[in-house]
């Protein structure tokens, strides 16, 4: 098939950036979206032009590296699908496709479609863990965890940290990401000791990093390639309120 691509090009963090148009021919429906960009980049390189920078690694939908807004939707039109798992059979001959980076104050553009998501790491560093040193653990089966709780924790833990939730949110809030990590740990007995301090610290870091507040649009849930539920936001809000009112003890 033949496609017309409109892609955000920005040479560096301080460059203004603009959309540029490229025509691409002979695209196979079996290609992944990123393989389609590979083909474009090969052609650009052979012409001596600089290829489009985009982040990617595992190409199996699990590392969370890839992320771009495709026709206005983070990771493109398919639900629960990362850009690397999106295949060109979703598109048709003659389509025009608009490709942009995540847009959020807390995710500054580094180049083209590559943004800096280290703010996510700093949210985790402020409390997204269980404080246990290596070597302190008791036998794993001394702590039975009901299957329902383990499954629910796993639902939250499935987050790949790609940032689509932030890109989809009109406020650029990181509440789905933050609540997924806090929820994963607060669902489990291991996470109880630090449950409230964790919630408070992570939310305060999120605010300090320049993410917006949640005002219940649920765009994040719709965009999440791992289908993480916005219910975790409600759970985090409850824990955060308890922590800040000092009623958690």
């Amino acid at each position, binding site marked *: 098939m033949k496609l017309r691509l409109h892609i955000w090009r920005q040479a560096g963090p301080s460059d203004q950036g603009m959309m540029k148009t490229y025509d691409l021919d002979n695209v196979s429906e079996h290609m992944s979206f990123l393989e389609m960009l590979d083909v474009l980049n090969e052609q650009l390189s*052979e012409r*001596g032009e600089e290829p489009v920078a985009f982040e990617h690694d*595992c190409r199996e939908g699990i590392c969370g590296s890839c992320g771009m807004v495709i026709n206005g939707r983070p990771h493109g039109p398919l639900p629960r699908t990362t850009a690397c798992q999106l295949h060109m059979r979703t598109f048709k001959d003659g389509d025009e496709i608009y490709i942009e980076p995540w847009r959020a104050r807390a995710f500054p553009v580094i180049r083209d479609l590559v943004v800096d998501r280290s703010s996510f790491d700093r949210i985790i*560093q402020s409390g997204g863990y*269980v404080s246990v040193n290596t070597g302190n653990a008791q036998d794993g089966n001394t702590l039975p965890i009901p299957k329902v709780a383990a499954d629910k924790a796993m639902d939250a833990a499935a987050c790949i940290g790609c940032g689509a939730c932030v890109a989809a949110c009109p406020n650029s809030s990181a509440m789905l990401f933050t609540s997924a990590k806090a929820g994963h740990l607060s669902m489990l007995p291991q996470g109880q000791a630090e449950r409230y301090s964790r919630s408070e610290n992570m939310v305060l870091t999120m605010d300090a990093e320049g993410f917006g507040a949640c005002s219940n649009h649920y765009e994040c849930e719709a965009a999440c390639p791992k289908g993480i539920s916005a219910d975790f936001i409600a759970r985090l809000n409850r824990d955060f309120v308890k922590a800040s009112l000092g009623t958690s003890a």
Partner: protein
Amino acid sequence: MELHSHIPSGPLERKWDSHKANLKLVNPANKRKFSVIVVGTGLAGASAAATLAELGYNVTAITYHDSPRRAHSIAAQGGINAAKNYQNDGDSVWRLFYDTIKGGDFRSREANVYRLSEVSANIIDQCVAQGVPFAREYGGYLANRSFGGAQVSRTFYARGQTGQQLLLGAYQALSRQIGLGKVKMLNRKDMMDVVVVDGKARGVVIRDMRTGVIETVMGDAVVLATGGYGNVFYLSTNAKASNVTATFRAYKKGAAFANPCFTQIHPTCIPQSGDYQSKLTLMSESLRNDGRIWVPKNHGDHRAPGDIPEQDRDYYLERKYPSFGNLSPRDIASRAAKEACDDGRGVGPGGKGVYLDFSDAINRLGAKVIEDRYGNLFEMYERITGENPYEVPMRIYPAVHYTMGGLWVDYNLMSNIPGLFVLGEANFSDHGANRLGASALMQGLADGYFVIPYTIGGYFAKGGLSSVSSDTPEARQAVEQAAAKVQALLQINGKRTSQSFHRALGKIMWDKCGMARNAQGLQEALQEIPALREEFWSNLTLPGSGEQLNQSLDHASRVADFMEFAELMVRDALQREESCGGHFREEYQTEDGEALRNDADFAYVAAWGYGGEGAAPTLHREPLEFENVELATRSYK
């Protein structure tokens, strides 16, 4: 080059305990005076960095990703082995040890493998304490499943995302130490070289991938946890950025590279669909718990799979290996698939595929149970192929997945360069000629959580480390060499992209040094690789500059090292005139096509020393001594 394995004396089951008791300790107040550089933040690197920081060492961790959470350990699907015997099915430390030694076709060290098996149970406990959401039974206890090469159920898992959950556990532990200021985390830095001063590893050269700035990080020890080199084949299940540069540069600085020809071809991957293919996707081995592998019995049978009746199907693994059946080890299952396809009975485009069929399991257990077990894998398969595996069998084909070879290390996981430690897939130590499923995660975390924290202390306690700065001539020279390499790549101004060169190299390696090898093909590869390398250095096109994010430059720099490393792999495959595990030399097989090992002549680790620019590498042999297991012909029949 002298290679001492430093395996402690005494009975096998006492070696690790007595070694720990004999290792000298570093006083807690003195630990902060030692700085450790950890390169790579996958399971091995993140667990090591976190644990060393907990102990009080100053740690600098380095990754080329935007975040330590992206390392390729994250993609491991099926699970992690541990000798817990929770299932009461006869598992034990000994049995896990024996399965691993046998699975590796008797080409690994007894003592290392036994230690791995011993600490496996601690890993599960540690991960549970961190909040890793392992699968649970209704009673709340940990669930297990089975993997290839084992007749017990000892694999712990978190849906089809075990690697992700274990990595996030280690990443959280690492993040905690970063937050506490105990680990300095450097993201988006590509390691270009090791700095060796007075014969000891004292630092690394890194290139900032955003700005191109090249500098050194100096310290008292360097820990490489930089993964495997499967991408030498271009198409593999590895992540796109996985590369050999860190370990290969260490090799060029004097570290021995062991058994580079030992690569694992995973039997269940989604077949290639076109020449634009950028990588291959694994379908977890756990699928073989319920999926049955078959091809049509008769040549030229092009009916749809559902129209082929039972009597016209060849369930070849069940036929050839009745006691392990569809759970035969990876090397054996891969070769059997190749055999069926070479025989002209493969399915799908080009006949490069076999069926992995769930219809029996769906009929027996219902689609809901299968969805609970493998739902996310089935979804992934459908997204990639457009076919629904609940209705038609999956098509799968073997693909490069893991590399058992790596830098040579002793029992302390230290290479022959003092102060250079190597963990996880980057070392050669535990899997011999073939790795069993669910053992890579086990080894990465064993090395990082439970081995290096002890052995690195023993190294520091010996003393003899004076302070070094980035101004030492060795450090300055290493920086200059790295800068020169980048400049050289940017100045070629040829016509062919690094992707194109990488594909060409991968084709040579797959055709001549892949699932089956022979002397003639390997000799041809030894001609073709240098010719391609020469073209690379004279005809590479590399747009952009070295002063800003330039992904083409990152890639070209890695391909340049693959071009040299490939030759070492081929040499190793050529000298090993036997078939063992993933290394199948066509000249050495039994009458029914099984691998023919030669213990009399090849029961050794092949450790290669760099010979200098243009000179041949030298082969050192570390004999493998088996005092506790009897060398037997591996049989899964």
